[in-house]
């Protein structure tokens, strides 16, 4: 009966209740959209970082991390087989990394050249997927001294497909060496800083120029079976005992601290946003419920006079507030979910309104998404807002003197 009465009380002043329910709906739709948008944006960036730029795990010599010198290398031959025994590891790609000068007909500058085994690298990085047919291929033809460069570098240095460029570097023996490469592919991953700074050649070509001994590498990129944090930690735990004291394994979060922070704190930030929205709505709900209580002073006095306990009065008002909030909350969350699901499938093109984000390596096509945990948190917060919003009006109701209130 208390539930029935609470429900009917909500609809005494239909307009007032509809206004507050609409506010809750709009607030939640906005909150869920913001959460979904940011989620999608960051998740996409993280997925892209993992799939293209930084592998799940990477091993370097400790000195290489702080100084990218050619001599800071390590032996991969035994380690490679041992790492591949982990069920969490999908693939592994040893890399030679050397700082070089690149010269085109128009410009000279610095880049990092990656010497890779194309077959292994394809299993770790999806860069090869970002080369369109008209921009060549990823070492498909077996011509030696081929090079794959980024679209931004190609544009800046006015390099075209099949152009010849010269890489100059210091070999392992400390001798200045140079060699010409022909561009076989131009990748475009939508991350200009990355595209401008990394070029890829076959490891055997680079080893030949730099005189780096066989099996010596600067980095090993490891791709795992999925993007789950638990997989990441498990694989890292498996590999650590295999390393010697000069090597260090780092997760993608450790390599790219900014993305790690994004990932770790995004949930907190988003929850703060939702909490602020609900706090604002909470004040509106307090006002509505308080008005409703004050208008019913005589009736509440009668209820208390005939034997309704303070506990039941509290229960009734909390129910009113919670139903009011949850009703709007349910519709708001449903609408929010529909919008997020639709946009998740279609994608949101933000290139017109936020074109500059592309310069920072973020995609201009966003696929909003929301996790079950985030959605459950919002549902919990909606109900909590309803309950907390009832406290002050309930206190006002319970302070009514029934003998006085009845005669008003």
């Amino acid at each position: 009966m208390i539930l029935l009465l609470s429900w009917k009380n909500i609809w005494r002043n239909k307009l007032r209740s509809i206004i507050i329910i609409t506010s809750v709906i709009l607030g939640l739709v906005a909150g869920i959209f913001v959460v979904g948008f940011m989620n999608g944006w960051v998740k996409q960036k993280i997925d892209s970082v993992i799939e293209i730029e930084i592998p799940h795990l990477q091993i370097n010599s400790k000195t290489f991390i702080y100084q990218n010198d050619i001599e800071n290398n390590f032996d991969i031959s035994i380690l490679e087989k041992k790492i591949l025994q982990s069920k969490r590891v999908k693939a592994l790609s040893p890399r030679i990394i050397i700082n070089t000068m690149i010269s085109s007909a128009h410009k000279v500058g610095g880049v990092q050249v990656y010497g890779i085994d194309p077959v292994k690298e394809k299993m770790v990085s999806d860069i090869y997927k970002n080369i369109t047919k008209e921009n060549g291929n990823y070492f498909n033809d077996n011509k030696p001294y081929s090079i794959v460069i980024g679209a931004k570098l190609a544009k800046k240095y006015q390099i075209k497909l099949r152009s010849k460029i010269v890489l100059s570097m210091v070999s392992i023996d400390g001798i200045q060496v140079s060699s010409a490469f022909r561009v076989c592919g131009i990748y475009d991953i939508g991350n200009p800083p990355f595209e401008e700074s990394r070029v890829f050649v076959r490891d055997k070509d680079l080893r030949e120029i730099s005189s780096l001994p066989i099996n010596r590498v600067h980095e090993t990129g490891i791709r795992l079976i999925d993007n789950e944090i638990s997989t990441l930690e498990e694989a890292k735990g498996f590999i650590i005992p295999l390393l010697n004291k000069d090597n260090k394994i780092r997760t993608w979060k450790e390599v790219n601290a900014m993305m790690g922070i994004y990932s770790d704190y995004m949930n907190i930030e988003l929850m703060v946003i939702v909490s602020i929205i609900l706090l604002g709505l909470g004040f509106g709900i307090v006002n509505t419920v308080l008005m409703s209580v004050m208008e019913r002073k005589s009736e509440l006095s009668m209820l208390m006079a005939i034997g309704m306990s303070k506990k039941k009065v509290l229960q009734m008002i909390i129910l009113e507030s919670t139903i009011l909030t949850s009703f709007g909350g349910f519709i708001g969350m449903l609408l929010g979910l529909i919008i997020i699901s639709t946009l998740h499938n279609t994608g949101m093109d933000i290139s017109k309104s936020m074109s500059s984000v592309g310069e920072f390596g973020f995609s201009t096509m966003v696929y909003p998404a929301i996790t079950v945990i985030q959605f459950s948190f919002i549902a919990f917060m909606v109900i909590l807002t309803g309950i907390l919003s009832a406290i002050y009006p309930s206190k006002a109701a319970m302070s009514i003197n029934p003998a006085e209130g009845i005669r008003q």
Partner: protein
Amino acid sequence: MGNSVIKINNLSKIYKEGVNEVHALENIDLTINQGEFTAIVGPSGSGKTTLLNMIGGLDTPSSGNIIVNQTNLSSLSYNELINFRRDNVGFVFQAYNLIPVLTALENVSFIMDLQNIPSKISRKRAIELLESVGLGDRINSRPSKLSGGQQQRVAVARALASKPKFILADEPTANLDSKSAENLLDIMEQLNRKENITFIFSTHDQRVMNKARRIIKLEDGRVV
């Protein structure tokens, strides 16, 4: 003399208005027996409502005792007083004080829900009570669809629903026309005679006084 339901000993109530003290009730001694149909009368400000509130456990005395069925109301805590009112007192108010969003049936059932009586039983009893006050055909009507007299009859049915020891009716006919007032008084008198329910009225209404079998006259907070 029948069995006493209410015994009031040396009851006084003093309200403070700034530095002044207002003696609303002074040294009242009273006994009300089971089955009485009593009217407390007196001019405005004589203390009728205050006395009714004291008997109903809505207000506490400054001194003296009210004993209802061997329970001294002064010894009860706030929560015990609520339970006392719920289980022992039926209230009929001047302004009906029904819950506007509930139907007549729901209004009558509500107090039984507070007593944790199963809804099937409470519904059956509520229908019987509404039939006994002549509203069997209006059980699903909301108060706004009922006349003043009909609303007050719902209030009487509600007061009876919890099977109280007595019913306190504060100016129950004040807002009713003559016909409705007569009709309501007849119903209450009938319930009193048939079911031996104790009724205590506070009233100015001569019609109530005419029906009452005992009149207690108050003046300046004293029984005269």
